[in-house]
Structure formats: structure tokens, C-alpha cells
């Protein structure tokens, strides 16, 4: 099963937003962002920019015909700042010009005076000042207060994880084209076409049916285009609406990095209590999420942090509190893992700290506390069909972890300036949007009377291979060759009210909807074939492009049948809707059954540290991953390998640094580094858990997009072990990412055990 578009990609023939031949009269937009992180706009001087060659118009907040509001969960974000500005880069004005260069040059000529206000960049400071996006939330079970006295070991501390730039290779962009009746067609690089449609309609004061959003593919999304593609699409739409001419707005990399939000940095407190045997009895955590200047998806992300506060471990007494803190940074947003990785980093830090105190390896504690069927999570979901233990045991046996650890120890005995570290990282990740309502999808399937098939859904292809999977689903249900099936662009006119392609659930939700639509058509064609062949319907089946009766192939084949069906006035199109069954969550009690199921896996990581230079590489990662019965093993393998690398990047290299004034310091690719091929793990082995069909899943499969990201956390803890192997005395703070600087400075403060 080939990734649907790969053949176009390798020839440079696949089109992204900036590659669509735009109409000749297309204008280009560029955006003026705030130069200060917090303040009031005193004056805006547009004259120089307005008089610049090629400039056609400059749009400000006052030019918005509808509501100047793009907030999705909480309405707290203006499209264009009118008076107050809350972060550097916050859009204030849109310059529309004949060329993108003219638009950009004119942006530089807009002069804005501000009255500056105090800037807050630290979430704990924001929390002290009461700057919360929403009231704090707490998930709890058991009674931690009572549990502490039963513990033999109690450790508390802090852990902090950094932001992460999405660095989708295709920057944010949109081409907006006016239609004849005052509506607009948008070609947008968004994971959420309906979100774009809804917000554009709101901002222009139009009904949603006048806005058509079409998405062919994205050059990467990773969450960064779930909510944050909307602003740029809306600006292009506003400009096209005002000018009644097509307008293209494509950000340059530097603009994209400065003006869009990233993964949320977290600063957290933890307290963990265990008995002598290593059983975790109690765990408390408080998470300070750095939300940035507006809500965006922060509250939903915060919720997932709470859901994953204990990662893969059963803990009877838990109290986890989370605060979404408003700061003067760009609004942070969805990024693969969606708050889960930040929670897991904290519990793994707590376990590492406890292991240190108890003089055991973290793996000993991890192993003793893994979920078992029947365990109840702090939010009330009962664990069923848990596979975390089977993944753990499979990892230990398949990769001979005992020997691997022994080799690491032996290497460390023999080498003074190079040290290795080892860590296990189990991952349990809940599959479903935590906002239950989003767990729905639609599909529209057309069978044409030449036997070819077109599938439309709400799923957006961004490299994750969802189109390949949808094609596979339709081919399996209809019993025809996948080459007969084309997955069309994602278009709000064909499938409406879609959820964003996110939460790893794109294939699950849209695949089920596709299955249901294909089943309707199949049923009609089977009825029709039974009339045509004069046999009972139950004896008819379709596969290999043929019609079978009692498992004998008939001369009547798929293509001919579709043509005959058309002439017999049988409907060859179907629309279907899917809603994930049996999920619910009661926020007033913070209990329920929010996830359809969990994805499981374990990674064993070895990192090698050059103790002289403070540099390191990931030597090996051995993974056992549960993805049910895969719809497309090569697509899924690619997701595991790619997510792992992003996770390693988040924790071992990528450093989002802001100045105290709220200015992004690493704002270009020459200062913000992501992994290159040399930084990829030298030896990577992935084993898909066998005989793991997931009965409730789409053709027994499981979702794949996000869970493997968190394997990267293992690399951080492996490096920490390598540092301790070099010098064992002293503190290594739980601060991610590690960078060569943090590593060298930390090991220079350690001392050797005498």
C-alpha cells in the first residue's frame, strides 16, 4: 500500500498552496505584527506604506465587516489588534499589494506607536498574578493526603519542558478567491477546513455556505495548522473580500516562526510516594502551562495533560492540578501529543528522582506499576485490554534488554570520556478527542458508472497517509482494486461540519465514515446484482473486482455492474456519518470514559555522551508498538519513526528561547535547529506487536499519529543516566530540552563518587 501521493512528491508534481497557479489578477498580502509584547496602540501611520509602489490597500481592525474575533474555544483573540497588543508579532495590519515583495516592503514602512505595559513570559508569574485562561482543574482519585504516611519513600521536585516549533516545511498560507455571489473560495493549508470556514464567515459576517474551503494537502501540520491556519486564511479572505480580487497570503519562515504559537512549555511540581517494594502509592502534580496571549486550544491541551498525568502507571491516590497561564507570548497551540508529552515528562521525572533515592533503576519502578485490566484511571475510565505489559515484556525479551544494560555498564567501566545511558519509556495514549463532540466524521462516496470511485471526507492529508488508508478502506469494503479509488481534496462543500484532522483520529473517524458510506453502496449493488443474476443476495459477494456467487466468480464484473446499475437508476452515491460510540466525560465530576481505546508501546533507548564536549547522540532505540492490526504497515512504520524523531528533537535539541521582553530569539532556521539525518538514531528497530487485532477498531486497527512521539522522552532520561555514569554526585535538574550547553554545564557541576 503506497502512500497516496508519493509518486507525485518524488517528481515535484504535487501542489501546495503556493504552487497553485493563481489567477492573473491575484494580489498579495503581508502582515504587520506588533513590535511589543504588551501595550496599547497609540497611533498608526500608514501614509508611507500607502504611497509605496504597488500597494492597493491596507486593512486594519476597523475594516472587519463582521466580528473581529477568531477564538475557537474561548473568544479572546482578535484577528487584527484594535487597541491592545499582547505579544510580539500579533497581527495589526494587512498590506495588500501587487507583488509579495511590495507588500512586505510596505509593511516595513508602517509606523506604530505603543504605550508599553509590563510583560510576563513565565507561567508561574502569570499564575501568581491571577492571569489564567480558565479556572484551574483537578483530577483526583483516592486520598493523597492520607496516603503519604503509608509511603516508605517520598520525593518531590520540579520539572520543566520547553516549547517546540512545528516547523512544517510548508509555511502557513492561503489563496482566497471571490465568487460571483459575494462568497469566497479558499485554498488553505489547514488541518481544520471547517474551522477556517466558520471563522471566515464570522469575521466577514456571511453565512457559512458562502465560504468554500478546499484543502488538497499540507506540507506538514503536526497540530500547528489545527487552529492556527485559521488566522492567515481569514486575513487572505478579508483582503479578497474587500478588494473583490484574489489574494494570496503565504508567510515566510521567519514570519511564521515569530507570529505563530508552538508547543506549550510547562513548569510543574511533583510529589511521589512509594512503598519499599517500588509500588507507587501516591502522586501529586501541579502543571503551569504557558498558554501565551490567547486561549487557542490551551484548555483542551491542558485537559489531555491531566488525562496522561500517570502515563502508563496505576496509582491509587492521585491529585493532579493544571493551570493554563496567560503570558505575553504568541498563543501556544496543538502539537503532536497535545499536552500528553508534557505530563509524561513530569511523571517520568518523578520516577527517576524516586529511583535515585531508592538506589534502583527507574525501569524497576516503571515495570512494577504498569496498568492492568480492571485498573481505574484518576478520571474514572476502567482499563480494558491493556497491552502495556505485553509491550514491556516483548521489548525486554525481543531486544534482550538485560544484555543491552549489561553492555552499557561494561562500556562505562571501560571508557572514561564517553559514557552511555539507558532508559525504558512506556507510553499509554488515549485515543479520541477529549472533547467528546468532536468524535464524529462524515464521508461522501461516489461510484461513477465506469467503475471508478471518488471518496471525500473531512480528513486532511498532511503526509500522515490518511488518504492511503481511506483508499484502503473503500477498496476492502467494495472488493475492488485500490487503483480504482481516488481520495478527493477535503472540501467544505462536499463534507460539512468536520472535525479537524487531529488527535490521531483522522483515519479512525473518517475511515469509519467511509466504510459506512461504501457499505450503503455495496448493499444497493448487491441487491441489484441479485436481481440481475437472479440469486439470493446473501450468496453474493464482491472481491478482486469481480462479482461472486457462492464464492464462484461470475462473468459480471465490477465495472459492468456499476454501468448497469446506473442505467437501472440505482443510486451510486452515499453519504455517511460516524460518531464514536460509548464515550462520555462529565467535567463537573472530572470522571467518565473519554477514550474509545488506548494505544500502547515501549521504547528502550541508549544514548552516548561525549563528556569532554558535552555532545551526544542517540545510539539505539528499540520499540515495540501496539497498533492493532495495521491498515498500512509501511505508513504506520513511517509515523512511528517520524514521531520518535520529533520527540527526540523536542527533548534533545530544539530550544524555543524568548527574551524577557517576549521576543523570540531563535526565530530562523539558522538559530532554531531540528534534527537532521546525522542526528537520527544510529540503530532503530521497530516491532509491531503481533496478534494484536483491536476488535473495535477500523478493520481491527489502531490510531498511530501521536503515541510514538513520547518515545523521545526515553532519550532524555537515557542521556541523564549517561551523565550520572560520568559523575554520580550532584543534581541534574529535570529541565528539557537538553542542549549541549545544558549538558556541559550540568556535568561540570557534578562530582565523582569517591
Amino acid at each position: 500500500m503506497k502512500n497516496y501521493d508519493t509518486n507525485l512528491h518524488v517528481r515535484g508534481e504535487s501542489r501546495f498552496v503556493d504552487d497553485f497557479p493563481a489567477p492573473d489578477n491575484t494580489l498579495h498580502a503581508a502582515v504587520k505584527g506588533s513590535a511589543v509584547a504588551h501595550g496599547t496602540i497609540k497611533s498608526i501611520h500608514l501614509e508611507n506604506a500607502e504611497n509605496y509602489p504597488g500597494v492597493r490597500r491596507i486593512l486594519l481592525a476597523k475594516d472587519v465587516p463582521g466580528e473581529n474575533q477568531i477564538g475557537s474555544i474561548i473568544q479572546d483573540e482578535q484577528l487584527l489588534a484594535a487597541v491592545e497588543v499582547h505579544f510580539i508579532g500579533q497581527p495589526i495590519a494587512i498590506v495588500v499589494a501587487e507583488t509579495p515583495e511590495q507588500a512586505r516592503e510596505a509593511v516595513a514602512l508602517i509606523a506604530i506607536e505603543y504605550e508599553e505595559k509590563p510583560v510576563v513570559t513565565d507561567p508561574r508569574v502569570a499564575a501568581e498574578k491571577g492571569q489564567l485562561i480558565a479556572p484551574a482543574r483537578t483530577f483526583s482519585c483516592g486520598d493523597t493526603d492520607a496516603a503519604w504516611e503509608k509511603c516508605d519513600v517520598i520525593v518531590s521536585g520540579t520539572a520543566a519542558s520547553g516549547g517546540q516549533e512545528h516547523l512544517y516545511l510548508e509555511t502557513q498560507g492561503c489563496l482566497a478567491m471571490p465568487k460571483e455571489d459575494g462568497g469566497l473560495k479558499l485554498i488553505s493549508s489547514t488541518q481544520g477546513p471547517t474551522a477556517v470556514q466558520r471563522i471566515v464567515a464570522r469575521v466577514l459576517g456571511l453565512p457559512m455556505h458562502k465560504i468554500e474551503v478546499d484543502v488538497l494537502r499540507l506540507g506538514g501540520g503536526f497540530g500547528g495548522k489545527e487552529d492556527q491556519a485559521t488566522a492567515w486564511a481569514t486575513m487572505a479572505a478579508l483582503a479578497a473580500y474587500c478588494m473583490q480580487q484574489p489574494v494570496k497570503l503565504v508567510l515566510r519562515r521567519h514570519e511564521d516562526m515569530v507570529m505563530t504559537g508552538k508547543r506549550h512549555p510547562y513548569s510543574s511540581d511533583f510529589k511521589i510516594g512509594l512503598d519499599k517494594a517500588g509500588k507507587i502509592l501516591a502522586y501529586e502534580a501541579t502543571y503551569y502551562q504557558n498558554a501565551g496571549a490567547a486561549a487557542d486550544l490551551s484548555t483542551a491541551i491542558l485537559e489531555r495533560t491531566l488525562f496522561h498525568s500517570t502515563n502508563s502507571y496505576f496509582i491509587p491516590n492521585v491529585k493532579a492540578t493544571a493551570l493554563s497561564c496567560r503570558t505575553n507570548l504568541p498563543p501556544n497551540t496543538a502539537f503532536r501529543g497535545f499536552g500528553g508529552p508534557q505530563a509524561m515528562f513530569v511523571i517520568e521525572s518523578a520516577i527517576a528522582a524516586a529511583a535515585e533515592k531508592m538506589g534502583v533503576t527507574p525501569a524497576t519502578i516503571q515495570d512494577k506499576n504498569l496498568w492492568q485490566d480492571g485498573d481505574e484511571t484518576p478520571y474514572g475510565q476502567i482499563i480494558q485490554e491493556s497491552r502495556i505489559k505485553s509491550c514491556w515484556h516483548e521489548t525486554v525479551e525481543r531486544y534482550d534488554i538485560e544484555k543491552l544494560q549489561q553492555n552499557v555498564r561494561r562500556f562505562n567501566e571501560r571508557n572514561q570520556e564517553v559514557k552511555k545511558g539507558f532508559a525504558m519509556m512506556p507510553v499509554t495514549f488515549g485515543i479520541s478527542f477529549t472533547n467528546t463532540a468532536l468524535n464524529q466524521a462524515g464521508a461522501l462516496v461516489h461510484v461513477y458508472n465506469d467503475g471508478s470511485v471518488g471518496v471525500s471526507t473531512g480528513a486532511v492529508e498532511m503526509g500522515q497517509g490518511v488518504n492511503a488508508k481511506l483508499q484502503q478502506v473503500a477498496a476492502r469494503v467494495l472488493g475492488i482494486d485500490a487503483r480504482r479509488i481516488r481520495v478527493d481534496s477535503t472540501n467544505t462543500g462536499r463534507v460539512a461540519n468536520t472535525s479537524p484532522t487531529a488527535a490521531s483520529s483522522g483515519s479512525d473517524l473518517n475511515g469509519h465514515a467511509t466504510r459506512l458510506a461504501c457499505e450503503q453502496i455495496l448493499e444497493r449493488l448487491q441487491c441489484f446484482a441479485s436481481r440481475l443474476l437472479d440469486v439470493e443476495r446473501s450468496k453474493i459477494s464482491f472481491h478482486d473486482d469481480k462479482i461472486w456467487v457462492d464464492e464462484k466468480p461470475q462473468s459480471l464484473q465490477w465495472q459492468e455492474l456499476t454501468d448497469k446499475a446506473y442505467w437501472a437508476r440505482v443510486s451510486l452515491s452515499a453519504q455517511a456519518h460516524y460518531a464514536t460510540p460509548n464515550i462520555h466525560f462529565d467535567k463537573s465530576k472530572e470522571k467518565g470514559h473519554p477514550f474509545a481505546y488506548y494505544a500502547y508501546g515501549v521504547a528502550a533507548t541508549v544514548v552516548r555522551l561525549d563528556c569532554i564536549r558535552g555532545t551526544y547522540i542517540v545510539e539505539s532505540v528499540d520499540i515495540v508498538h501496539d497498533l492493532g492490526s495495521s491498515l498500512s504497515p509501511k505508513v504506520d512504520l513511517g509515523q512511528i519513526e517520524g514521531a520518535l524523531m520529533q520527540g527526540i528533537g523536542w527533548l534533545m535539541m530544539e530550544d524555543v528561547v524568548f527574551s524577557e521582553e517576549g521576543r523570540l530569539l531563535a526565530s530562523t532556521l539558522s538559530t532554531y535547529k531540528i534534527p537532521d539525518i546525522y542526528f537520527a538514531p544510529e540503530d532503530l528497530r521497530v516491532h509491531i506487536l503481533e496478534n494484536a487485532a483491536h476488535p473495535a477498531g477500523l478493520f481491527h486497527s489502531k490510531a498511530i499519529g501521536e503515541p510514538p512521539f513520547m518515545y523521545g522522552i526515553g532519550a532524555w532520561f537515557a542521556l541523564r543516566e549517561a551523565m550520572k555514569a560520568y559523575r554520580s554526585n550532584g543534581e541534574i535538574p529535570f529541565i528539557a530540552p537538553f542542549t549541549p550547553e545544558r549538558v556541559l554545564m550540568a556535568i561540570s557541576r557534578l562530582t565523582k563518587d569517591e
Partner: protein
Amino acid sequence: MLIFLLNQQKIETDQHPGTVLLDFIRNDNRLFGTKEGCREGDCGACTVLTGRYDGDKVVYRAVNSCLLPIGSLQGKHVVTLEGLNGIENTVLQDAFVYEHASQCGFCTPGFIVSLTDFLLNNADLKFQEAIDSISGNICRCTGYASIRRAIDRFILDVKNKIDLQPELRIQQLISAGQLPAYFAEIPVRMAELVADTSPVKNGKIIAGGTDLFVQQADALRSASVQFVDDAAVHHQIRVENNECIIAAATTMEDMRRSPIFQKIIPDFDKFAKLIASKPIRERATLAGNIVNASPIADFTIILLALDATVELEKNGSGRHVALHDFYLGYKQLDLQPDEKIASIRFPVPHGDYAFNFEKVSRRTHLDIASVNTAALIAYENSTIQSARLSAGGVAPVPFLLRESSAFLTGNEINDAVVQQAIDIAAAEISPISDVRGSADYKRTLLCQLIFAHFHEKFPQVLSEEASL
């Protein structure tokens, strides 16, 4: 008027020579297979091949089109991915498809073009050289594992199609259906391309442009510019009277490929690969690295340790300035208006000597150093005859560690001496905190890297307990 070939097409354009090729390809020629990812040579999505005459042959190199002014293309052949496509996929393209080495697809054209450079130029198609050819390509989706598998497969498949005779490579690739047939006509067509105006002789001098077009691309799109004729200076590395003389416009890859340089510094290949990426090194020149005056310039740091001198030229007359005297302050040079670098020279080390280069950056490859340092140590038995240590990122200029170098000269190599040299170095530098690291870190790191010089080159005389 500027004349060059773009794929099969002859281009004659009056566009400003400072326009970058990426914009020219996409906006003027609507070839959308070349992607814009960063406009600073850091992602590789815009990679194209440029072919130029090297002797009597046309040689193709992958370069970043976002940093390449069209004014430097006179008489050359530019190849985008569209110009490599045949009716059928090549084995390279098929290997990427088969191994799912492309996910979102935005970076993929750059990978294919970079690997085509490898296919065209690498004599024995070694895997590790294939990896180096994509040292400037970033992929955010795959994690590179599938790209490695695709490269493995591609090398195997292509070896089944052609013999390893580098001099016949293009011809063989055409016969094997791995390169479009029009490539056979290109040398003749290129020879016919003649500029209809003489080159401009004033304005900003642009050689490789690999940093200029990161910093000033918007200004250079309308500024007065002149270009260094890179065809004429190619391969000008020579030794005369125990001096190695290098023409100003020699690129870093020319240096890496030079047998002369490899002989003087046997580890040079390893060091060069820590500098920029292969496509950048194909364009970046020695003189450019020097006049750019970055306090962290990798190549300049190497040349400082080699005791290099720059030969400056103005209206036919010249003067020589020691490289360590060339820097007067941050980005300030001992360079008159209209004066330019003609060549760089350094004495070829003799006797027993060790040369080492150390660099630590957040990412090992294609990154700017937090600190870099080079050391040239001539010795007899275990006594240092002369030492020259240089360091970047620790002062406003590329810095010669005069005091620690002077201290080392005449001393024995042992733990105590190395430690004292480190202490002296720490006292003579003045690092500042910036996005590449805090001042404290840079100071600590330089100390470590000086230790690393000795640890690398004289491991037998140092004890294992000496570091940090």
C-alpha cells in the same frame, strides 16, 4: 542580458542580477517543484543543480537556489527537479516511493536533487557520501529512517544499471534511463552561450553569497552588484616555496576535494563536514568567509591556526596582511574601499606536527558554532616547538589565542601544561551571552575543546582524569 540554460530552455533575461534563483524559477518560470522552506539555506527544499564547465566537462553541483543570485549563472546550466524527470521514474525516485521516504512531500524534491548530485559525482557510490550529499536537507516527517532505506535501495539498484566509471557517468545514466537524454546536448549548448554585455565592475562583490543572501537578500534584489568569475579560479590551490596559496574564490568543497589540502591536513575531510552543508560548501568561498568577519567563521578559525596571510589587491597593486591583524574589531577589517582579497596563503607545516579542529554547536552539522577552535602544534618528541591556537565565538573577532599559544611553545606536553594553557586561554577571551550560548558556557566549552585538541592528538601523554 544574462543568458543561461534552465532545464532544456534557454533563458535570456534582464532581471536584476541580485534576484535569487528560487524566485526566478517559481515566479517567472512557474516551475513549482522547487520549494521555498526557509530562504536561508537551512532546509534544502529549494535545492537545484548548477552545471558549469570544469576543464572540458560540465560538472553539476547541488546548491541552494534561495541563496543563489541569478547574476552568477551566466553561461551555466540550471536543473530543477522538472529537468530530471523522465516519463518513467528513476530508480532514485522509485526507491523513495517504495520505502515511503516521502510523507508530506514538501522536502522531497530537494532530497531527490541533492542525491542526484551524489549520483552524478560520487565515484563509487558510497552510502556515507550519499548521506553527506543530503547534509543540507531537512525532513520533518520521516525521521530519516525511511530515507536511509531508500538510499540503500537506490544505490543497489543503480549499481545494477551502470558501471562505476565516473568519467562516463552522465552518458551511462542517460543510456540507463536515469537522466533525460537532453543532458547529452548540454555541453554544446552551453558552449554557445555568450553574454551580450561585459560583466559589471562595480557594486557589492558577490562570491558565493551564502551569508550575504541570508542577511541582505531583500536589499541585494535592487542594489548594484558584481560577481566573482568562479569559472576562472576553479582549482587554484597550489604550493610554492613551502607556501600553500589559495585563490580567493576557491570554495570550501574545492578545498575538501583538493589532494594538496588533504595532504597538509589529513583529517580535513572530517573537519570540512562540520562546516555548513555540502550545497553551501559548494558555493561558499574562502575570501567570503574571511571578509564576512563573523567571529565564529569556521574556516577563518582554521586559517588563523595555520598562520595565514591575505593578499589584498587594488588597481593592480597589492599588499599582504597577516590574517590575525586583518580584524580590527567586530565586523571591522583592515580593508580599503575597492580593495579585495586576491589570495590566501599559509606556510606548509613541516616536521612532526598535529592539526586539529573542534567545533560544538547545538546540532553537529549545518549549524553555527557556539565555540570553535583550531590548533597547529609542531613538536619534537614530546616538546612543543611551536603552537598556534585559535578560537571563534569567544571575542568580537576570530581570535588568535596568542598567550596560550606562546605559553605552549617550548613546553612539554603533559597534564599540567595543558591545564595551564587552558587557564591562560580562559583569561584572554571575552565571550558574550547570545543565542549560541551563555558567556559562561562558551568559556567552559573553549577550555574543554582545548583539552580535546590534546586528547585527540596526544592521547598517550595525557591522563584520563584530566578533563573538566
